[in-house]
């Protein structure tokens, strides 16, 4: 380490600070930031739990144990349980093709994968109504064969898959691009088979990025409202997911019940961001180790 980089290291620690704001400016900026975050994030979080228990702990557990709530929880788990693994496999496949090979139209493909993020969830649900609904492309055929997709569980799974489509792919593509293909090529040269290369070389390198994508994908899958709302048909106990059940309770003026179900999803959101922060640290540590090895 030369004297110049030592100087930089010191300055990063904040011991030498030729550039910095006066203390009072710092305090004002910190206060403004904290006030903004408290107003928009902390207060709503507290309110969810206060409202959930506002009619007593008895009603809270009564709502959660209600058959309609349980069926909503089950449907949410089914929708996430199908859409997350599908999008996970897709994400790995897309990232492998895009990061490890050169082909024309790569940038267009990457942009197309991001499309569902740019589309309003309401439109994300609507497109399936236009394909599978009674007046849609396959509507008459589906009715003829007595298959229900819209206003039934398959539609909810499809809509959930659409809105969570890019999560894993967009996490893995840049990660695998930055890692290059030399390690896999070395493994192949040394005689590893294709799948062996993937399981032993690629997967350990991308595991934190993959987990990160899966966590975000799952959170969105369980919380999606707009897209699912279009294709659900709101048949209670049959096509209501947890977010839709919250709406049903809320519209019945059962505010405490709505917040009770909401508190479960809020708890899930808190677990999600805690996991996300943990995975981010793990991923950063792995990237650092890789850099050190290659340097």
């Amino acid at each position, binding site marked *: 380490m030369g004297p110049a980089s030592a100087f930089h290291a010191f300055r990063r620690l904040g011991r030498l600070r*030729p550039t910095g*704001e*006066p203390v009072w400016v710092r305090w004002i900026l910190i206060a403004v930031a904290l006030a903004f975050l408290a107003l928009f994030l902390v207060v*709503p979080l507290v309110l969810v739990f206060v409202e959930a228990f506002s009619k007593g702990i008895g009603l809270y557990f009564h709502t959660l144990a209600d058959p309609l709530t349980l069926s909503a929880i089950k449907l949410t788990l089914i929708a996430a349980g199908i859409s997350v693994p599908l999008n996970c496999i897709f994400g790995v496949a897309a990232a492998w093709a895009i990061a490890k*090979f050169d082909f024309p139209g790569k940038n267009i493909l990457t942009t*197309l994968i991001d499309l569902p993020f740019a*589309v*309003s969830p309401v439109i994300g649900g609507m497109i399936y109504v*236009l394909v599978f609904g009674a007046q849609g492309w396959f509507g008459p055929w589906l009715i003829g064969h007595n298959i229900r997709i819209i206003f039934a569980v398959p539609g909810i799974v499809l809509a959930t898959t659409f809105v969570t489509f890019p999560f894993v792919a967009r996490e893995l593509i840049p990660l695998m691009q930055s890692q290059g293909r030399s390690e896999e090529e070395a493994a192949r040269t040394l005689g590893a088979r294709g799948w062996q290369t993937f399981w032993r070389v690629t997967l350990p390198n991308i595991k934190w990025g993959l987990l990160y994508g899966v966590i975000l994908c799952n959170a969105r899958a369980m919380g999606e409202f707009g897209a699912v709302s279009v294709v659900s048909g709101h048949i209670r106990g049959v096509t209501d997911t947890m977010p839709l059940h919250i709406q049903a309770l809320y519209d019945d003026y059962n505010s405490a019940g709505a917040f009770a179900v909401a508190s479960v*999803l809020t708890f899930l959101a808190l677990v999600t961001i805690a996991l996300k922060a943990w995975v981010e640290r793990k991923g950063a540590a792995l990237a650092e180790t890789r850099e050190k090895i290659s340097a």
Partner: protein
Amino acid sequence: MATSQTGVKKFRVLPGFKLTLGFTLFYLGLIVLIPLAATFSKTASLTWAHFWQVVASPAALAAYRLSFGVSLLAALVNAVFGLIVAWVLVRYQFWGKRLMDALVDLPFALPTAVAGITLAALYSEHGWIGRWFGSTDAAGQFHGIKISYTWLGIFVALTFIGLPFIVRTLQPVLEDLDVDVEEAAATLGANRFKTFFRVILPMIFPALLTGFALAFARALGEYGSVVFISSNIPLKSQIVPVLIMTKLEQFDYAGATALAVVMLVISFLLLLAINVLQWWSTRHRERI
């Protein structure tokens, strides 16, 4: 590796190209492209006059105005406060910093329906925050500024959901910022204020704009949180996604599709703009 332009067949050391690309295209087509094409083909079955009648109706025009106006305002507020939050999280040390940093992601992780009912309760006349904006008289009548069930409520919801975009786009850029440039500015006699506006802000501007565009795009399409906090009255407080939903509930698929196409075209343009911005942002950083 040999290039295909010379006509030499590529030899690939790594396997699975055809399998993974094939599956990627198949799945993308099945889930995203074919259903989206259905929307455009449905619109093609409308006559031009009918299409125009729907997308330029007074209700639609009012919805565009509200959607664009409030989304823009929310993204602007987020740009200002998001910059402050990102700056504070990157540059300063304070108690609870890691917790706050993690909490910034809450709007990403919290289901929009939960956000909707929570914000509606918070900002209602009797809510924890809403009650401070007016007073309730003996007859139970509220005097003051109503937030929930007015456009201000929509603004609050869209600000909430857009919050992480600016912070998360700015943070890595601020971390990479070279302090040497700030030192140079200080050495040349610029005060901190001037350094920020003349040196730092121009460097982070592309990233700020990208975050702004992301927050704006997300706000335009938002449905879940807004539907609870808005009164959803046609011509007054109905944003475009709510208007589309109303048409779908009335089985007016032609009308809903026409509006959806307008929104899709706008979304595609925004996506394109964001990609260009991100490209500009990375190049800008590399050049500096």
